[in-house]
């Protein structure tokens, strides 16, 4: 645990503009619980040598001494949504990396969480071109092996590069990836923005259930279509996929279409999505292409 703290490289900011150090993080959560700003706080704690998600409570506020940030990344916001579904009156605090925040925005938009009941503390995030050091399980994606590069789709590819293959080759490459699927539903289960009561991936009229292997490519394409305006590119699905299918790339393409059509950047803000408009009038015009 000490190691975790020492490795912590930079200060993090809270919901406001305050900045703080690691000890302050614990003090702050402790104070939030004591003064009743939140009823519970979802963070991480070392348990049996593993950094695990942990629910700190106002009944036991001093446990916050054991709060850590944790290198492994779990969807704390999905846990928050599950808790809120049972106990909507509870005020929930949680640690958020950039991806958690984007997922929260989507959960707010789709009424899965009430922003008034949620308090966040921002922490350091995945590596990117802007941020070389990151503290999460999805550090730099693993380089793909040579066979995969030859016949499949490299998970590190950009959408544009993947589209340079001829249509036929692209199809074969994607089919190579999809055919590996073991139909574990891990991609859906782990996804912070998959919350439907009835999932199309388990709807017999769309996809045969109860048989393996899954029907490809429909199994993956149904999910891809559902990720339009929902996927916030956190990579948890790819992380959970036992056979390394470049799911994130697939959903990135879908959301590129959403962005081009509606000028909507999924998860960047908690405002109206073009996909959940209620009422009889359509006010969002598709952008001319």
């Amino acid at each position, binding site marked *: 645990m000490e190691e975790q703290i020492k490795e912590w490289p930079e200060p993090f900011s809270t919901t406001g503009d305050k900045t703080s150090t690691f000890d302050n993080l614990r003090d702050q959560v402790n104070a939030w619980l004591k003064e009743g700003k939140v*009823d*519970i706080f979802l963070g991480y704690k070392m*348990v049996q040598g593993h950094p*695990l998600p942990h*629910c700190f409570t106002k009944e036991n506020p001093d446990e916050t001494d054991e709060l850590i940030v944790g290198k492994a990344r*779990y969807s704390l916001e999905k846990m928050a949504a599950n808790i809120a579904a*049972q106990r909507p009156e509870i005020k929930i605090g949680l640690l958020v990396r950039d991806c958690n925040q984007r997922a929260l925005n989507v959960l707010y938009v789709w009424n899965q969480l009430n922003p008034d009941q949620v308090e966040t503390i921002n922490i350091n995030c995945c590596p990117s071109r802007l941020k070389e050091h990151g503290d999460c399980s999805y550090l730099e994606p693993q380089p793909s092996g040579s066979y995969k590069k030859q016949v499949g789709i490299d998970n590190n590819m950009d959408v544009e590069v993947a589209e340079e293959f001829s249509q036929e080759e692209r199809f074969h490459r994607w089919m190579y990836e999809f055919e590996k699927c073991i139909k574990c539903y*891990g991609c859906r289960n782990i996804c912070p923005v998959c919350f439907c009561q009835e999932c199309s991936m388990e709807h017999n009229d769309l996809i045969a259930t109860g048989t393996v292997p899954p029907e490809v490519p429909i199994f993956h394409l149904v999910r891809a279509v559902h990720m339009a305006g929902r996927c916030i590119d956190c990579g948890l699905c790819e992380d959970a996929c036992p056979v390394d299918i470049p799911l994130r790339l697939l959903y990135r393409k879908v959301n590129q279409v959403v962005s081009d059509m509606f000028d909507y950047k999924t998860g960047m803000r908690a405002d109206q999505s073009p996909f959940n408009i209620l009422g009889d009038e359509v006010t969002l015009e598709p952008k001319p292409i």
Partner: protein
Amino acid sequence: MDYKIIPSICSYCGCGCGVLFQVLDGRLTGTLPMKTHPVNQGKLCIKGWNLHEHVISDKRLTSPMVKKDGQLQEASWDEAIRITADRLQAIIKDHGPDSVGVLVSAKITNEENYLAQKFARAVVGTNNVDHCARL
């Protein structure tokens, strides 16, 4: 409000993937893969993902069942063990120990599997022991 994350090991096969159980107000609500577990590294198969379901399933047996008058009926452990022992003894006496086979499972521990093969070989007297991983 009580929300706990409980680390455990998947009991469905011999791989031993690390899982996390989500427990909300005393009720098991879900299973997650443990990201830092050396065996599964944050991945699970479909059985592991649904590990919590058999625990809370209505179909789960909560007591031994004994077939009486052609119907399975709830029974005490003592009664069930007595009947099983009597029937096994009768079958071994009439048809020999090789008329009995023992099927063990990846869902139980190594030690329990060891006991089961010991039971087959030393008590029943047969080498008919097999495992679901080979079926």
